[in-house]
């Protein structure tokens, strides 16, 4: 099975852009990724486009705008893992030698839904009882606080780090630093999660040129190899399971570590799915960066800061960079690719990482931890 590389990466700023279409955003990201790879359009063998709310044939609409039509296009919907699932499909297409070079796009425009909660699947029993994504995470947070002794201030500290990192990331949606007091005082969304503990809804696109061609992989920068690409779904359980431990993330990460032949101690930079502040703490633990309940201490020690030994979400994560759903999984890989290549600019981590991990998870349907989780490991 041949090696697969990220040859190029690009993204748009994330934010609320009234009247800007998904096609326009995605075109910008694709052009940037192709330029970053030094790749010509003719080198693309097929395309996967991840989007949750982009509508039918979003990939074809984007490629039509780019004048790149006729090739195989697959649109991928997997809630918050849409973009990362699109990447997994690209990896698979290259490993199987069906394609040499694949374009991966992630895009969503969510500002059209206004500022409230996103519409979820209407036939879902939990949704019909008024459950929204913040409530899903809030119920985990409440149990986590009670069982680990963690405090609301320790939840707020996650947002403080995210915003401090976003302040140095020109593409982030929320770039204003906040204090813990401001986080705690912001509007309550689903108790105990406040507004500033929740990722903003918005618009954005990201793209990758993924290849099995070793020359293209090195054409414009050091080769960044995808050492693992794993997707899992939440396992249904009608009875008690530990709500403040992400079984799905732990399971997916375990398979990714096995595929890559390394472990959590080897990671030099990490992107986790911090849709809400509690998520970052739980994902530190589920990824094996620390034990259950030790997340707040790990954060407080500076271990996961941009200057720390294992920086997590150096560009602000979902909390600050934003979460245009389909774009996020791809944006995480754009971020770590730049970190591995040393091209992340003002928010470049200082520990010169060689190994990165991205974890993308989400979507809520009744009875499942989350709908999907994707973990990628990249090695430079």
């Amino acid at each position, binding site marked *: 099975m041949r090696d697969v590389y990220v040859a190029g990466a690009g993204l748009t700023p994330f934010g609320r852009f009234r009247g800007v279409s998904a096609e326009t955003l995605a075109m910008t990201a694709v052009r940037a990724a192709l330029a970053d790879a030094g790749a010509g359009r003719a080198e693309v063998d097929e395309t996967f486009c991840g989007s949750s709310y982009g509508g039918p044939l979003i990939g074809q609409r984007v490629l039509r705008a780019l004048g790149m039509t006729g090739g195989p296009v697959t649109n991928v919907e997997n809630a918050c893992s849409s973009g990362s699932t699109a990447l997994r499909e690209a990896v698979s297409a290259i490993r199987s030698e069906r394609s040499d070079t694949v374009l991966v796009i992630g895009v969503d425009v969510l500002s059209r839904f206004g500022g*409230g*909660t996103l*519409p*979820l699947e209407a*036939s879902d*029993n*939990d949704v*019909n*009882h*008024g*459950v*929204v994504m*913040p*409530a899903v995470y*809030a*119920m*985990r*947070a*409440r*149990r986590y606080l*009670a069982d680990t002794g963690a405090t609301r201030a320790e939840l707020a500290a996650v947002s403080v780090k995210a915003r401090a990192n976003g302040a140095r990331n020109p593409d982030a949606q929320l770039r204003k630093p906040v204090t813990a007091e401001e986080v705690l005082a912001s*509007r*309550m*969304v*689903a*108790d*105990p*999660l406040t507004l500033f503990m929740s990722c903003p809804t918005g618009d954005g696109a990201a793209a990758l040129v993924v290849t099995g061609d070793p020359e293209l992989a090195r054409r414009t920068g050091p080769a960044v190899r995808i050492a693992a690409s794993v997707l899992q779904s939440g396992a*249904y359980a*009608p*009875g*008690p*399971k530990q*709500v403040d431990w992400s079984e799905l993330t732990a399971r997916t990460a375990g398979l990714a570590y096995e595929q890559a032949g390394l472990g959590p101690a080897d990671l030099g930079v990490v992107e986790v799915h911090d849709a809400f502040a509690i998520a970052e703490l739980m994902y530190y633990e589920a990824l094996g960066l620390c034990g259950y309940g030790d997340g707040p201490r790990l954060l407080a020690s500076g271990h996961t800061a941009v200057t720390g030994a294992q920086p997590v979400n150096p560009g602000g994560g979902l909390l600050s960079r934003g979460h245009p759903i389909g774009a996020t999984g791809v944006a995480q890989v754009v971020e770590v690719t730049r970190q591995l290549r040393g091209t992340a600019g003002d928010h470049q981590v200082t520990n010169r990482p060689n190994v990165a991990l991205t974890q993308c998870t989400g979507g809520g349907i*009744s*009875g499942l931890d989350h709908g999907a989780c994707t973990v990628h490991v990249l090695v430079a």
Partner: protein
Amino acid sequence: MPIASATEREIQFFPTGTAWEDGPDGVRLLAAECARCGQLSFPPTGDCWRCGSAGTPGALPLSRTGTLHTFSVVHVAPAGFRPPYAVGQVDLPEGLRVLARLEVADPVLDEPLEVALGVIRTDPETVSYVFRRPA
């Protein structure tokens, strides 16, 4: 909150069926029960998630009281719902964890709650199971 009228829409479960029965001693949730292995599910999964047996035809009335495992008070709600309202996960003795609306002021973790019926949505007006403090 009292149930307003008999014309209110009831929650319908996938694939079909209702979630509760009104018995002599009050409302009871109905779990699906696999005919082959006895595994319960609520809401019903359709085929048995444990043994794969097609369909889970049994309907087992569940205990009326459970323990509140976790909850959240929702302040930002979708259209048709009027915040603030509480949602929570209640553990029943049969080994099921039920996600439900709570008609409880200031819920407390691990407190005992009892099943009842209540209006959970205003647009369209919808009745479903809720949990309250035992009378």
